[in-house]
């Protein structure tokens, strides 16, 4: 193809996508002259280029659209939905012609007289009947066109020619006037960026991957040789390689907004077609991710948005009847977390109909009645990802043809991501997608099983547990199935060696390491013989012959030159099978009652540090327990730290650091937050107990919240919030506070002084101005006094007026209707959550789950911050 033509096609397609999105925006903000100018400029450029390349059909269309828009611009015609629809049609027609042009390298035969005539007529009609339109926007497109056609036929002919001629003149002058600053604007952009072929970037990436491998090999050789003159230059080479890798990776990064570009248009068209009023909110459009990943999630996202618009959101009347705003909302959000990007697609529609899913799953033979009875609601909801599953009663042109969420999940699986669904009937549906930032280079844990080494992508690894016969975590057996009791969960275990048929024994040994892996909603343990380290690996695809094994997602060359296989957690999860899903369901059902009975109880980790006095922290705050050899502790910058999972982890001490252990084994409580961790060095870990936490004597000492009776002994409750900032001064602040422009005011209601004390510093550090009160009545009194808060966080179980009642009371006041209310509770049952939603809670967070609380707050106050 002619270079010129190719360039034209690329550029024009890009421009048209922008025009699409901008037009929809423009329709909502008809007074925004900047948007119109931008659209006008793009269309004008397209017209000009078409003329230059000798593409008369395109030129005529672009010209007619431009003429109509020039009427908006000079104010002689108000912006109507009708007119915008017509222009969008024109854009579609142009796209059709472009795709033909791409195939055959010339404009297809055909005439656009109809469309051009409509455009001209519209421009001609101008303001005359502009007051009337909009209402047919709700009808289907065909109706709209028919009505237009009729209108055109009724108008006498010759006028149109004159009218068409007139805007042409007007428009000739207009662009000339602003030509100068237009050029300036363009040249500025041009000088800052250049267009590079994707192939070139792909090539670069491959080369860098090879370089990383070679570098790893060299490092390995030098490590084995000990002192060598290569060491220093190699270190530099290593750093440069890392930077190069980073740089090349960045060239492949694109904002996710690019995948969202087409969505406003899709939603607008759907809204028109379905007669619904839909608002599309996009948060975090500038979050960047790898081009390759972006391409893979584009279609799934569009599909999910379509689903939400079609099935999720109810028709206006139904919404009003359900007490919801007439306008439905679909919200997309994206943000980075560690090496992953988290994308959320949520709507406030009717949510999933679990009963119907159950029915369908049964009818489709996906599960038996007995299986289904054992499953929890989320497990049943997960059936929407099964192939050929659609709950739509009516098959519409938009969705509901049974190809859907299974394809979405497949696409996401293929890029090593996971998708979770969360739905509350009548309140809405939300999907959370977690995907790696890039596919080419991933961080992986190297393990050994059956005498072979394997890589497990770090993305799927939740934690590592070491087991032996006498350790705290023990492998238990239910008949032949091995399980691990880990905190509140019962994990099914698979032996990697037996799964891969390495060696003869099918039995799972009693000691070794368990890699806890999460795939979607399923968590299970993979038993391995030993664990080495994490390494950045370059993923190479499996040979076509080996692809259908299903257990491996690829292979890689390690630093020592050997090839190892990369385990595909999805494949393993499938092998673990439905049986374990059923087992987990049973388990969840069984301990449900216990959980309510023990709602007030908290798991506490009891330890000694600095003094013989017993100390305790809530177990849920602790990420892991570790024991390290004191000799591995290094001192750097005057601080003690250890190398942990490839990173430096600072250690903090309770009490006097000089008295810290110098030899032997040092037990650590590891607290982690995304990619950082800190180790709290303690003398001895005593026990994990479940007890009611009741702080009886508050403390003024920093680092201690107060004293409580735990298992009959006086115990100091340690304030973790005090120690973490000792390691990283910006521990709580960094990501949350950095982006915050103004402080959000937050009202915290909790009858327990312990929780108020624990949460206040956390929330403050996250950038909220916190007011804490001890009861619902106090909270209501404050609100009645006219104090305004951006968000309300309340405990559920409180004496007197409880959290549900408070939420209902707040909802009752029109003034506070928009204030998000987040519930804190130790009861995490689906029923309680459901009840919370009904009472008007916007979100429901477990009491000790600091990260979820911050995330929920961030989400609920996103609007406030943007508005600020």
């Amino acid at each position, binding site marked *: 193809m002619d270079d010129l033509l190719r360039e034209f096609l690329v550029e024009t397609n890009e421009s048209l996508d922008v025009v699409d999105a901008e037009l929809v925006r423009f329709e909502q903000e008809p007074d925004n002259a900047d948007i119109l100018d931008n659209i006008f400029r793009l269309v004008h450029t397209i017209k000009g280029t078409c003329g230059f390349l000798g593409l008369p059909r395109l030129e005529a269309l672009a010209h007619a659209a431009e003429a109509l828009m020039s009427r908006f611009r000079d104010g002689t015609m108000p912006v109507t939905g009708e007119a915008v629809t017509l222009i969008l049609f024109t854009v579609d027609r142009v796209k059709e012609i472009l795709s033909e042009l791409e195939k055959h390298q010339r404009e297809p035969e055909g005439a656009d007289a109809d469309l051009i005539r409509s455009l001209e007529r519209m421009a001609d009609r101008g303001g005359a009947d502009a007051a009337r339109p909009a209402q047919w926007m709700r009808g289907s497109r065909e109706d709209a066109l028919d009505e237009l056609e009729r209108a055109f036929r009724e108008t006498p002919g010759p006028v149109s020619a004159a009218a068409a001629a007139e805007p042409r003149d007007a428009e000739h002058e207009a662009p000339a006037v602003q030509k100068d600053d237009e050029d300036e604007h363009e040249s500025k952009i041009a000088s800052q960026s250049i267009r590079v072929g994707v192939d070139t970037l792909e090539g670069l990436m491959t080369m860098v991957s090879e370089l990383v491998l070679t570098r790893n090999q060299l490092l390995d050789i030098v490590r084995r040789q000990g002192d060598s003159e290569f060491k220093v230059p190699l270190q530099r080479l290593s750093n440069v390689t890392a930077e190069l890798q980073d740089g090349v990776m960045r060239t492949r990064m694109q904002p996710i907004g690019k995948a969202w570009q087409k969505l406003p248009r899709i939603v607008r068209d759907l809204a028109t077609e379905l007669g619904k009023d839909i608002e599309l909110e996009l948060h975090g459009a500038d979050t960047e991710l790898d081009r390759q990943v972006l391409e893979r999630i584009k279609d799934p996202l569009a599909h999910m948005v379509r689903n939400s618009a079609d099935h999720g959101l109810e028709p206006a009347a139904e919404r009003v009847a359900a007490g919801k705003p007439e306008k439905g909302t679909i919200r997309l959000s994206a943000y980075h977390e560690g090496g992953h990007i988290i994308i959320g697609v949520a709507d406030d529609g009717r949510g999933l109909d679990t009963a119907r899913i159950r029915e369908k799953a049964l009818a489709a033979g996906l599960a038996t009645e007995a299986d289904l009875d054992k499953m929890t609601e989320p497990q049943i909801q997960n059936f929407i990802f099964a192939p050929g599953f659609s709950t739509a009663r009516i098959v519409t042109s938009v969705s509901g043809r049974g190809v859907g969420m299974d394809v979405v999940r497949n696409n996401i699986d293929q890029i090593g991501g996971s998708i979770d669904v969360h739905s509350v009937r009548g309140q809405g549906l939300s999907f959370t997608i977690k995907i790696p930032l890039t596919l080419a280079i991933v961080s992986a844990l190297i393990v050994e099983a059956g005498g072979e080494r394997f890589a497990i992508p770090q993305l799927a690894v939740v934690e590592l547990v070491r087991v032996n016969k006498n350790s705290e975590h023990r492998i238990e057996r239910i008949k032949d199935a091995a399980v691990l009791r880990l905190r509140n969960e019962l994990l099914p275990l698979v032996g990697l060696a037996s799964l891969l*048929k390495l060696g003869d024994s099918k039995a799972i040994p009693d000691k070794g390491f368990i890699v806890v892996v999460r795939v979607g909603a399923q968590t299970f343990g993979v038993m391995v013989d030993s664990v080495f380290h994490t390494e950045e690996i370059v993923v190479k695809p499996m*040979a*076509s*012959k080996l692809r259908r*094994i299903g257990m491996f997602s690829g*292979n890689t*060359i390690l630093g020592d030159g050997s*090839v190892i*296989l990369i385990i595909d957690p999805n494949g393993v999860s499938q092998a673990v099978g439905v049986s374990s899903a059923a087992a987990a369901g049973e388990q969840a059902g069984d301990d449900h009652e216990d959980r309510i009975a023990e709602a007030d109880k908290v798991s506490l980790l009891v330890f000694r540090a600095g003094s013989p006095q017993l100390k305790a922290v809530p177990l849920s705050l602790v990420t892991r327990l570790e024991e390290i050899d004191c000799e591995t502790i290094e001192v750097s910058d005057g601080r003690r730290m250890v190398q942990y999972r490839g990173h430096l982890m600072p250690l903090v001490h309770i009490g006097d650091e000089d008295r810290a252990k110098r030899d032997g084994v040092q037990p650590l409580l590891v607290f982690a937050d995304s990619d950082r961790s800190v180790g709290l060095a303690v003398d001895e870990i005593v026990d994990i107990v479940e007890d009611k936490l009741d702080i009886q004597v508050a403390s003024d000492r920093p680092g201690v919240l107060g004293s409580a009776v735990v298992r009959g002994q006086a115990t100091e409750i340690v304030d973790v919030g005090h120690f973490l900032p000792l390691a990283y001064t910006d521990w709580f602040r960094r990501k949350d506070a950095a982006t915050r422009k103004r402080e959000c005011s937050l009202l915290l209601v909790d009858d327990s002084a312990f929780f108020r004390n624990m949460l206040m510093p956390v929330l403050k550090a996250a950038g909220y101005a916190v007011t804490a009160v001890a009861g619902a009545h106090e909270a209501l009194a404050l609100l009645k006094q006219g104090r305004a808060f951006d968000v309300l966080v309340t405990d559920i179980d409180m004496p007197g007026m409880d959290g549900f009642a408070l939420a209902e009371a707040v909802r009752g006041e029109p003034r506070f209707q928009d204030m998000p209310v987040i519930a804190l509770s130790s009861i995490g049952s689906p029923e309680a959550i459901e009840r919370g939603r009904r009472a008007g809670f916007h979100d429901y967070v477990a009491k000790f789950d600091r990260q979820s609380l911050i995330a929920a707050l961030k989400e609920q106050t996103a609007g406030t911050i943007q508005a600020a």
Partner: protein
Amino acid sequence: MTTTANSSEQLATEYVTVTVGDHLFGLPISRVQDVFVPDRLTRVPLAPPEVAGILNLRGRVVTSIDMRSCLDFASSEPGTQAMAVGIEWRGESYGLLVDSVGEVIALHDSDCEGKPANLDSRLSRVADGVYRLEGQLLIVLNVDRVLDIKNGAIAA
């Protein structure tokens, strides 16, 4: 059946000769990328029996095919399969593990005879023909069929 013409203008093909289980095989030289000593083979669990493993050859991951298993010969004692012939197939790198690699010989196409009807089915599938060399038979291997494991050897 075959004419024993000696004209030098006749079409000839060069073959890399290899031995597998005491038999002599010929691989068209146009299909052979390189010959190397396989080192540090990584086993692939759950793979078809013909796949001996994968290895790193100058930064490329090469899938190795055990020719003995492929041709239904008794598997060798470890260490005897000393050589590998590198083949590029559908954009991927493969290595055929053989007992030894011999010389390259040029043979006239017209000298090639059809494979005997009573040949072992597995051997028959991958053989294109037979040459009668002095004192020995050379079986011409069809590389594509050797590598087309999925549709053939396993089912057979």
